């Protein structure tokens, strides 16, 4: 069956260098460095990545960082809490705009 997203394509991610090797190399080197232990642990970074993956709604990233967080020793509760952080910020970002709506209502309505 043809689909826009094919799980097998995730394994081909590194092949993106085929059309433009220099930028791909820079990206993957940078990517590798970003996820190393630093001021944040690799485990914390993986949980952030999982939350962001849900925000950008990328199925590849969701698959990859679900497994990666498990491989960093996280459990289901921690994965779900990370997703809720993304949800809260996303929902909050919508809701906070209601202040603008309210401002406008007060501006134009009696």
């Amino acid at each position, binding site marked *: 069956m043809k689909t826009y997203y094919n799980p097998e394509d995730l*394994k081909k991610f590194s092949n993106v260098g085929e059309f433009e090797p220099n930028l791909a190399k820079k990206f993957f080197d940078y990517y590798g460095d970003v996820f190393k232990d630093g001021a944040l*642990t*690799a*485990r914390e970074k993986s949980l952030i990545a999982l939350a962001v993956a849900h925000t950008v709604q990328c199925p590849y990233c969701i698959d990859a960082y679900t*497994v990666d967080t498990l*491989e*960093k*020793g996280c*459990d*289901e509760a921690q994965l779900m809490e990370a997703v809720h952080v993304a949800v809260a910020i996303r929902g909050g970002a919508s809701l906070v705009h209601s202040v603008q709506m309210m401002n406008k209502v007060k501006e134009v309505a009696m």
Partner: protein
Amino acid sequence: MTTATKSLKSRHSEFADSYFQLQVISSTAQNGHAHLQFEKKLEESGLYPLRPQKLEIFQINLGKMCNQVCKHCHVDAGPDRKEIMTRETMEQCLIAIRQSGAHTVDLTGGAPEMNPDFRWFVKEISKLGVEKIIVRCNLTIILANKKYHDLPDFFKEHGIEVVSSLPFYNSTRTDAQRGDGVFEKSIQALKMLNQVGYGAEASGLVLNLVYNPSGAFLPPSQSTLEAEYKKRLESHFGIRFNSLFTITNLPISRFLEYLMETGNYSDYMDKLIQAFNPVAAANVMCRNTISVGWDGYIYDCDFNQMLDLKVNHPLQHIADFGKKDIQDRDIIVNQHCYGCTAGAGSSCGGATA
């Protein structure tokens, strides 16, 4: 993971058959994927044929009988398994241990404590003056029957190093892999071990825990997870332990069944192969350990034992040990070996690289 309630053998599963398992793992094409042969990987690293080094650890499997039926068990152990080592074979092991000069004896199973000659055997090994005796205790056995309640004292008396599986610091993951209620009982057993001094730095009584993934993924970094385990177990339950060993699940026996049934096999193999680490390959445990089965046959490791791959050496039984140098042989490898060489490596003592 759902919990198995019976061994593969008593379910008459084809995965109980080592020949079938070997066929599955050594076929290079699964779901259209070609899995590179382990021998080729070793060759690329200059390690083929894989040769043993100095023999340091004597691992003895006292039998397949166990009070648990863990979903991932590579021994296919359980209460329905009756194969256990006889005292006669234990006597042959004692002679071999003395001759071998190994500094460590590692007792495993099943639940080794269920062998009626277990305590006798431990006492006899103690007399040999080896540096370390390890018992791989599944924790719940201590509570399984009144006759096992004093095991912590027995271990203490003989200065045994206790190594116990606890696949996670909460019940969800632990019970999914090891059976309902196992986490709670394990915590109780750990408290009993702590009470007699196990896990306290000054006591000299070593209690090490083993993490292995409850699913088709690789273990985390050993040191990071150890810190997390220590924090959680201490703050939630007041439990102390010495070190955490992270172990990778090898694609054999019940874990192989799980991988095949859930459609995870091919991706899991890809993952192991992709994570091949030549440093871990150079440090695989079969180079300094030999494994003796319940019936006295000798294997390169506990995994080869479960696959019925006896050592590639003219002397294959413990009764003949010492007549020829057992370390002068090529280690038998196959695709399951990728589990020992992935990432930071995996052995009965945890990460190797």
